[in-house]
């Protein structure tokens, strides 16, 4: 980061207008006058695909997650259902509050991190590999229990530093194209970038099935894709930077419904 700042400072190229972070938006209010889910920016066909539970391919991972939910691990410890009972009632709304501060880990974790924490702590099993079909299936299944419920994350107390870091990330230029998240997802919402209509970058649909991927994928996969898009080095799946950004994005999407599993182009 310091190296980048130094480089930017040395750059006398007049076409580079501003390399410093844009001013962060005030914390008290959401940065956009009207909150629109990514759903709003899809074609009618893609919206219909998301809405039809028997055509939405993301539901295949939800079904697989349901199987995993009730399958006890080899360690003799209980299945997810052994502690949490019926996911349809006990897990409704849970995903809408992630990422959140986890006391025993003393850090903010996202849903994938919480699932792996449960596996290690309560099932004495190894954590699932990020972006593996099993972790995608479980997070899609738990996420699906909150489908339609409003996103609501805590950003105060022990979550405050992560939130501030995530917000700073959102407004920091990066990559060879020297773009921050807000340059696409606030300043140019609704405009076309080649064949894509720029969305507000709301994160309520993940894990989401993307036609481009021909698969379901996590929010972090989408964030890596954003980084590569501006020609920045992507972070690892589950990286602290992405969890902080995820917290900021979820706060930014406050009140929008969880759409897991959403369908995006």
């Amino acid at each position: 980061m310091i190296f980048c700042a130094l480089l930017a400072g040395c750059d006398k190229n007049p076409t580079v207008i501003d390399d410093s972070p844009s001013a962060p938006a005030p914390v008290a209010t959401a940065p956009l006058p009207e909150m629109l889910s990514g759903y709003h920016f899809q074609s009618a066909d893609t919206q219909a695909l998301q809405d039809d539970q028997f055509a939405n391919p993301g539901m295949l991972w939800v079904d697989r997650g349901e199987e995993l939910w009730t399958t006890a691990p080899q360690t003799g410890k209980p299945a997810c259902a052994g502690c949490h009972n019926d996911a349809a009632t006990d897990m409704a709304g849970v995903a809408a509050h992630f990422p959140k501060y986890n006391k025993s880990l003393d850090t903010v974790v996202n849903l994938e991190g919480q699932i792996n924490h449960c596996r290690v702590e309560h099932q004495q099993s190894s954590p699932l590999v990020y972006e593996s079909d099993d972790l995608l299936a479980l997070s899609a299944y738990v996420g699906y229990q909150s489908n339609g419920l409003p996103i609501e994350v805590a950003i105060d107390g022990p979550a405050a530093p992560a939130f501030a870091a995530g917000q700073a990330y959102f407004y920091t230029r990066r990559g060879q194209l020297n773009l921050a998240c807000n340059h696409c997802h606030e300043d140019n919402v609704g405009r076309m970038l080649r064949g894509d209509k720029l969305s507000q970058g709301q994160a309520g649909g993940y894990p989401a099935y993307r036609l481009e991927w021909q698969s379901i994928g996590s929010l972090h996969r989408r964030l890596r894709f954003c980084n590569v898009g501006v020609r920045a080095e992507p972070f690892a799946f589950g990286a602290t930077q992405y969890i902080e950004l995820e917290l900021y994005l979820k706060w930014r999407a406050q009140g929008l419904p969880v759409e897991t599993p959403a369908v995006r182009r």
Partner: protein
Amino acid sequence: MIRTINRRNWLAGAGTLATLTVQPRLLAAVSEPVQSVLKRDFPTAEIQPGRVNIELPALAENGNSVRMKISVDSPMTPTDYVSFIQIIAQANPLPDVARFDLSHANGLAEVETRIRVSAEQDIVVVAGLSDGSLWSGSAHIVVTVAACLDALY
């Protein structure tokens, strides 16, 4: 632009156009990949335009998965029904997409699926009826290019 030839259009034109030999017209109008499929699968039969209705977006957001719905005008009775529907995508690496075999047991000659479309093209559909007659329709599609490609991430 969806160049669907529906029953009404076809019937309206049928009075004056009935004498036209349709197979050479169709074959002349389509590309070599479609011709080779038609020659392979229907070497002798005559293919007439009409009866086939296609729902396909004029502009696909992503060519990996494009909704396509096909219906064929048919009463679907034990003596008069659609026996198959075949999809041909001439600009794809392989022109064959899918073939659906039906009978009067379906009650309705309508199939929906999702296909891969590699480039702008006319997607051709051939339907075969129980009397042996062959009918066809086509729909034009443009595939947009995404801003950021993500094949490896």
